[in-house]
């Protein structure tokens, strides 16, 4: 059975390592913060100028000066720091952020990603996504394996305007966990509970390889 968005977030949270600085994009990636494993300390970076993002504020304690990159009211934690947008993208560009999690419309078997623009639709802008994908040392994409029409979003090459090239290292979709190989290709490592390798093969348009030790996802 395909994962829920919450479950995708939960599975991604297992990739967190103690001491990681992590940037979580809008949407499913934001949910990852809800599943940080016991004993793992991570610091969340918000690219609008905060390290050490805390939970949403209690009702009545919202602070208009304190928001995240999704413009939501948030809080700080002990050890937080504020800085300007240039420093924020400086730390991103210099590879100081250990892990970036973001959503995608399409990912190619080379690790290209498209997630900002659909021709013919109102374009809202790339925000910080292009900076993040161009510089992050480690990018995990959280996405649905197929679009609502059932067409694969894991492609030989992206059809939509790109956000970045050869940058995605791992995908956690509602059906599978896949690595993207340095030489290209989706390597199937884990299947969602009750989802067969065959189903994933069928729903992956790009070149799919199956790991020798492919196994069901654990949470």
């Amino acid at each position, binding site marked *: 059975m395909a994962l829920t968005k919450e479950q995708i977030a939960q599975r991604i949270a297992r990739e967190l390592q103690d001491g990681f600085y992590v940037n979580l994009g809008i949407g499913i990636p934001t949910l990852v913060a809800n599943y940080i494993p016991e004993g793992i300390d991570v610091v969340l970076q918000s690219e609008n*100028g905060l390290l050490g993002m805390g939970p949403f504020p209690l009702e009545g304690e919202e602070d208009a000066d304190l928001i995240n990159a999704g413009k939501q009211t948030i809080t700080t934690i002990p050890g937080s720091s504020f800085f300007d947008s240039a420093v924020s993208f400086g730390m991103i560009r210099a590879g100081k952020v250990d892990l970036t999690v973001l959503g995608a419309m399409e990912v190619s078997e080379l690790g290209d990603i498209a997630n900002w623009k659909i021709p013919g639709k109102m374009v809202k802008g790339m925000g910080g996504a*292009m900076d993040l994908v161009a510089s992050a040392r480690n990018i995990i994409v959280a996405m649905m394996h197929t679009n609502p029409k059932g067409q694969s979003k894991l492609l030989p090459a992206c059809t939509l305007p790109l956000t970045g090239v050869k940058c995605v290292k791992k995908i956690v979709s509602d059906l599978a966990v896949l690595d993207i190989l340095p030489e290209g290709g989706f390597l199937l490592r884990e299947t969602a509970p009750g989802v067969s390798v065959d189903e994933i093969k069928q729903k992956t348009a790009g070149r799919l390889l199956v790991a020798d030790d492919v196994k069901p996802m654990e949470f």
Partner: protein
Amino acid sequence: MPQIESTMKKVYKDATDAVADINDGAVLMLGGFGLCGIPENCIAALVAKAVKDLTCISNNAGVDDFGIGLMLQQKQVKKMVSSYVGENEEFERQMLSGELEVELIPQGTLATRCMAAGYGMPAIFTPAGIGTEVAAGKEVRNFKGKDYLLEEAFDADFAIVKAWKGDTEGNLIYRATARNFNPMMAMAGKITIAEVEELVPAGSLDPDMIHTPGIFVHRIFEGKNYEKRIEQRTVRKK
């Protein structure tokens, strides 16, 4: 050396006074991220002044009835240079009708092109946008095996920023994530106008804790009636 008591003549009465010489066709930088840390008073004064054909360099374009959205409603903006322009129907209408020119720039590139101007650097290199349509027509250069785009510093006539506290020398301190683009833009303006929630006498701020040194700020005034609207009020229960 004698004691030097500097009393720079930077303090303006209000926003109307501070933006009085911003004329049609000016290129402006406007601080803020979403509606957080935006120069509310100056935007109101620019709306009242009905100045037109503005180019606005700002990460976002406000919402329909607040922030830069107020200038869009009055059709004062010729061109927006932003990274994300989501929540604004009038913006969308003007863009689709061709009334409004829009240049979308990766957020880090936007920040760093402001920074470059403030640091007197004519251009910077960034990998953001390599292999995408953002790279079209731009010089690509490889350093140590990685490709970078050459991106030029912005050249704005006025930078309009919002700070939390400021002193009569123009020194600024920002609060929380309302800092965002304000410090780089403050450094980058040929003329920098700062509105602050609290204007204090020189000497009131700890010199170690100043985010923007006064040399970058040409005009400063204490703003009033800050609305500080929240775009996405998200809370948790006790």
